[in-house]
């Protein structure tokens, strides 16, 4: 051992083989199927978001008089500004899409069942954080959509019984959107939510490591002798390939479909046709179908049911004959979500 290696080993007292054992968890064979990488994909995209987000924050100025101009400056003046902003936007879109797909995969393979109920709930918190990060993100641009989206979002909060009015005031920093609002959205988007998500993600991954990945077997795999393969190097290579594919995809999307800039926010005029980002089409349509409080309470109830679903599911299979009811309920829910999204996308009002 060289002198430096000895010096280093004394300061970082861990042996190479211990480190390898700690990280080298056997990975169940079914992870060779690509759709089981859907959990790692948003995690990778999250890192892309942190890096591109830090770069964008260098130029962004969160105040109503400067926000739109600073985004325009990034998009039109800063070298590669359009590219960084487009990657940030596309990674956000893909992150939300893959989080939803990951959740669907966990749901339909029953991965949330005992003993993994708590990790499902942490995943639900991560889903909500991802949606709110998306929402606060497009509010920062100070386009028409940003302004009216933030106004509508804050008023949705105000419809929550008891704490709603306080929540709206805390979010906006006043009775309505004002000059104190954008810094709050910026702090939420760039500090509070990302840090919360890093903590939640750590616990999410820790629990996966403690429980081990759910073992599933497919008909095609039955003949294979080894039910596991090594995390290092086999699975790591899969993840690296996935990372490369995502980088290529993001660069291609950002180059072919760069993000534009809508009209500047106008507090006096709500545009004739206004839509949120695609991932809020469901809630937007829901809000059109019911009165404010009814829509907010029913949405809250649906989210609550999603949170405690592992326990509802176990009660269903314990006390009824419909042990596989979750699959059918899931199919109905997916059709409802897709249906409401398409409905909202297809019509102007």
């Amino acid at each position, binding site marked *: 051992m060289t002198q430096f290696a000895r010096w280093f080993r004394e300061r970082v007292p861990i042996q190479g083989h211990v480190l390898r054992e700690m990280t080298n968890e056997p990975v169940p064979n079914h992870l060779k199927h690509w759709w089981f990488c859907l959990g790692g994909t948003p995690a990778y995209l999250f890192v892309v978001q942190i890096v591109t987000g830090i770069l964008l924050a260098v130029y962004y100025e969160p*105040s*109503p*008089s400067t926000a739109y101009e600073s985004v325009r400056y990034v998009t039109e003046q800063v070298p590669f500004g359009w590219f960084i902003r487009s990657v940030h936007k596309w990674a956000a879109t893909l992150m939300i899409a893959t989080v939803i797909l990951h959740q669907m995969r966990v749901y339909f393979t029953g991965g949330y069942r005992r003993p993994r109920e708590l990790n499902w709930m942490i995943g639900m918190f991560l889903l909500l954080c991802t949606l709110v990060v998306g929402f606060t993100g497009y509010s920062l641009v100070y386009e028409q959509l940003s302004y*009216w989206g933030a*106004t*509508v979002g*804050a*008023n*949705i909060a105000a*419809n929550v019984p008891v704490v709603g009015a*306080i929540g709206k*005031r*805390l979010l906006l*920093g*006043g*009775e*309505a*959107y*004002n*000059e*104190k609002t954008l810094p709050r959205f910026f702090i939420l988007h760039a500090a509070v939510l990302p840090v919360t998500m890093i903590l939640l993600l750590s616990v999410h991954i820790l629990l996966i490591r403690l429980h081990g990945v759910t073992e599933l077997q497919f008909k095609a795999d039955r003949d294979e002798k080894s039910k596991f393969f090594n995390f290092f190097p086999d699975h790591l290579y899969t993840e690296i390939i996935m990372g490369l594919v995502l980088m290529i995809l993001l660069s291609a999307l950002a180059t072919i479909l760069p993000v534009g800039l809508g009209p500047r926010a106008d*507090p*006096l*005029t*709500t*545009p*004739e*046709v*206004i839509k949120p980002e695609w991932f809020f089409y469901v809630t*937007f349509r829901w*809000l*059109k179908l*019911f*009165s*404010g*409080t*009814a*829509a907010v309470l029913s949405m809250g109830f649906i989210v609550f049911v999603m949170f405690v679903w592992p326990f509802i599911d176990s009660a269903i299979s314990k006390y009824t004959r419909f042990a596989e009811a979750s699959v059918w309920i899931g199919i109905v829910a997916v059709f409802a979500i897709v249906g409401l999204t398409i409905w909202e996308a297809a019509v102007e*009002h």
Partner: protein
Amino acid sequence: MPDASDLHQPQSSDGMDRRAFAKASSLVMAGGLIAGYGTMAYIAGRFLYSSTPRKLAWMFVAEAAKLHVGDTVEFRTPAGQTVTITRRGQEGTAADFLGLSSTCPHLGCQVHWEAQNNRFFCPCHNGAFDPAGKATAGPPAAAGQSLQQYPLKIENGLVFIEAPTELLG
């Protein structure tokens, strides 16, 4: 060599044993922590709640005589709200006029007048209101909401409106 269990025996020389003292002091400590961090949380909450009082003032809109029945003027408050003021009677009092906010009571978008449908329409969630501001369709109708009315008064033949003065950034 004392027995290990002796160390945990109560020492009742001054009326309070070790266990009770440890318990009481832990409670006091926990209480202190809760009080301390609770105060910090309260201060942080007040810091974020930023309560600027809403200032109202009477502002000039138009000369009453220049508005005929059915005429409408749009008034923009310093805080940025648009108010549609319509003359509906000829009594010569403030009751002749109706000052309707253009902010939808549902989720705060701006409504606009649709002459062809004789209604105010909110593009966000399809709310509709009749000329008097009463909701006729969409979520505001389901909740029984109306467009907010602003107080108006007439002084020396001039129409005034009472509205917030705080400015948008």
